[in-house]
Each structure stands twice: as structure tokens, then as C-alpha cells.
């Protein structure tokens, strides 16, 4: 048997060393998720879908580190954006959401990941749930910035309107939002879990597209079960499961 990903032609993305970066901006995406804009001080090459390790150090040397997906598109600049979901009691996510201010410095290492990445050329389908929207947003933003939005087809699942990340950019011509608990007034679709009927249109004339699925483990399992039902070969599907990152 051949292993999946054996031929992924990806050369960018050595994790490299820890580096000190400056928080250049911060904004709340939702009441529970904050985007940090980081200035890495020099041009930073990465691929949409990759993540950074982020490390916090206390005065006595105690450290805590977590992985955060990059939300911004590769742009040949020194800036990247991470979106952090605030998990109550999480020593890193609470600190990043509640304590960090513009001008603070943090340590990061990366970019990391060569599997759940988009090469910026092949048409793709993305299916995202909750905080799983982050790496797929990097892909969508890159496609839009390149003037090739038709390469992307994105479906985002959110519980209710106040939980949607990047609400001023979603939905769009190439992206739809499915509400699972509560839909905004006037929505044609009643709130409810993702079904085959939600995913099928993504594959109209696009059976050959690589499919990126990102979200909680239960979300990913539900989506990949539906993909199997729709006849999408498992070899075309790349899954990134987000565990709780406290």
C-alpha cells in the first residue's frame, strides 16, 4: 500500500528555531476567540494550513506551549495572524485572550505541518467547524488575494451567528455558512447538523478536488462519514482534528 501524502511536493516549512515576535495588533473575532497579529521582524514564508508553536515563559523559567494555526494568507510579509479560542481555565489561551496587549513579545516556532497545506494552485474543497475555520481561512484568503477565488470552495459550520469567525469575510461567492443551533433571521436552511445535502453541492463538477476537513474530532468524523457516503475517495481527504488547546 502506498502511504497518503507520499508525493506532496512541499518544501516550505521547516520549523526552525524559537524566535521572539511582537504583537502588532489584536481583535476579538467572537466573544470567545481573539486574533493576534504578530510581527516576525522579517519576511516569513509559510503555506496556508500550517501552524505555529507558541511558547510562554514565566520569570522562573516555567514554560507552556501550544500550537495555533495561521489564519492569514501567505503574503511575503513579516506579519502573520493567529486566532486563539479562549478556553476557560486554559493557562495559555486565557493569557493570550485576556492579558496580551499590543507591543508585548511572545516566542514562536514554525511554520509547522506539511500535510494539511494548500499549494495555492490546485482547486480544493474545505469543510470547517468552529475553530477549525482558522487554517481554511488562510487558504480562502490566499485564493482571494491571488484573484483566483474559484480555486476555493468552503463550507463553514457554526453554532450560531455570534460564534462565526471572520464574519465580515464569510460567507462569500465561494463560501457558505451552515448554522447548527441557531440561524440568522431569514435563513433558508433550518439550523441543524451538517448533512449530505449540505456537502453535495461542493462537489458539483469538482470530484477531483482535494478536501480539507478541520474541526473537533466528532465534527471531522461526521464530515468524513458524509464524504464517504458521497463517494469521495478517502485518499483525497485530509483531516486536521483540533483537540482542546488550553
Amino acid at each position: 500500500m502506498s502511504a497518503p501524502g507520499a508525493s506532496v511536493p512541499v518544501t516550505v516549512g521547516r520549523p526552525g528555531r524559537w524566535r521572539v515576535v511582537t504583537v502588532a495588533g489584536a481583535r476579538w473575532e467572537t466573544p470567545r476567540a481573539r486574533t493576534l497579529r504578530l510581527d516576525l521582524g522579517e519576511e516569513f514564508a509559510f503555506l496556508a494550513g500550517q501552524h505555529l508553536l507558541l511558547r510562554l515563559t514565566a520569570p522562573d523559567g516555567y514554560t507552556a506551549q501550544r500550537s495555533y494555526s495561521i489564519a492569514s494568507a501567505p503574503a511575503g510579509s513579516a506579519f502573520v495572524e493567529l486566532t486563539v479560542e479562549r478556553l476557560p481555565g486554559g493557562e495559555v489561551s486565557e493569557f493570550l485572550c485576556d492579558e496580551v496587549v499590543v507591543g508585548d513579545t511572545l516566542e514562536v516556532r514554525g511554520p509547522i505541518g506539511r500535510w494539511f497545506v494548500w499549494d495555492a494552485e490546485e482547486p480544493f474543497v474545505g469543510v470547517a467547524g468552529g475553530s477549525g475555520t482558522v487554517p481554511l481561512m488562510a487558504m480562502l484568503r490566499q485564493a482571494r488575494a491571488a484573484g483566483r477565488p474559484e480555486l476555493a470552495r468552503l463550507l463553514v459550520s457554526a453554532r450560531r451567528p455570534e460564534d462565526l469567525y471572520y464574519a465580515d469575510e464569510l460567507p462569500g461567492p465561494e463560501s457558505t455558512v451552515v448554522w447548527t443551533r441557531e440561524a440568522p433571521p431569514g435563513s433558508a436552511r433550518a439550523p441543524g447538523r451538517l448533512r449530505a445535502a449540505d456537502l453535495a453541492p461542493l462537489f458539483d463538477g469538482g470530484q477531483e478536488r482535494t478536501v480539507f476537513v478541520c474541526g473537533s474530532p466528532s465534527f471531522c468524523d461526521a464530515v468524513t462519514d458524509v464524504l464517504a457516503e458521497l463517494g469521495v475517495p478517502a485518499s483525497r481527504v485530509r483531516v486536521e482534528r483540533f483537540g482542546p488547546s488550553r
Partner: protein
Amino acid sequence: MHVTRGFTGHGRAARDPRLPPGQYDAHDDWPVLNAEPTPRLRTDRWTFTVEGLVENETTWTWDEFRALPASRYDGDIHCVTSWSKLGMTFTGVSVDLLLEAAVPDPAAAFVTAVSRTGYTTNLPLADVRYGKAWVVWEAQGRELTPQHGGPARLLVPHLYFWKSAKWVSGLRLTAEDEQGFWERNGYHDRGDPWREQRYQGDD
């Protein structure tokens, strides 16, 4: 050392000495991380094969496998994405028993664990011998679920958990180290959590 302004690490009062550097205790969560859809495997078609540089290539059916003497691992597991779970219990068969049946060739120095999905991971043979590795079908006293690699997964708890291949279908012994899936994608060939061997080039 770069001190983060304002960070004291309020979670560390509970920090356990069993946690390797850079890891945190996932407590009741058991995050699931795999790169592919979860396969639903039937035990009536399940087999496990030890092959490659062995004198006696051996294949077990599910029933034959489950008839082997079982043993337990009580201890910790560590995922490269920074979570650890402490005090886990797994039940399965020691890899030593499987190798004993297949009789490794003296030239065998590495092993590739192969999964039903095509996933592979490479390990030094020494890391799966002498009571360090199991093929397990039970976790925390319950049947291993498909999400966690059921019906059976490899368990190599002293290395980062991507080495503990889910849905494992066999071991292939080789003379040379042949990189597996994550290793080709930038992760470390050995993956010792106590030395933080996360990525190629670490350590």
C-alpha cells in the same frame, strides 16, 4: 530565556513531574489527531503480519491474535501536539511475543509499523523490544474505539504518540531506517518526548 510579560503559569501548581518538557496534562480529554478519515474495520477480516527481515513471516487472524497471552501497560502517553495523558491503562499483546514468533534476522535494526489505511511510521527495532511496545485492543478497560485506532493499535508509550500507529496491520523489519508518513512530513525519526524530539533536525 525570554520571559513573557505578565505570564506566571497559573496551571503549573498542578504540574506533574510525569509531564515531559513542553507538554500539558489533557486530564479527561483524549484528543484525536489523525490525517485521514477514520476507517471502520471488521475483525472478521482483520489480520496482523510481522514480515521483512524475519526468519518466519507470521500472520495472525483476529481470533488467533486475541488468543495470545495479554499484558497491560499502566502509564502515560505523550502527543507531539503537546498534550499528555497520565495514568492510562491499555491491554494487548507485547510486541516481544510477536517478534518471538517471527524470529528477527540479526540484520534487522528498524521497524516500520503499517496501518490498514496506508499510514506508516518508522522506529528503531530496539524501541519496540523488551517490554516497551504492545499491540493493544483495550484502553481504560474498554474496547478501543475506531477513533483511537480500534480494533487494534500499536502502543509505544515512551515515544511521541504518532509512533503508536492506529489501525495497525503489521510490522515490517528492515536493516535501514525508512521514513514513515509524518517523518517524511517533517517529524522526527525517533520522537523521544523527554528530549523533545518533535521535528526533523531536533536534537
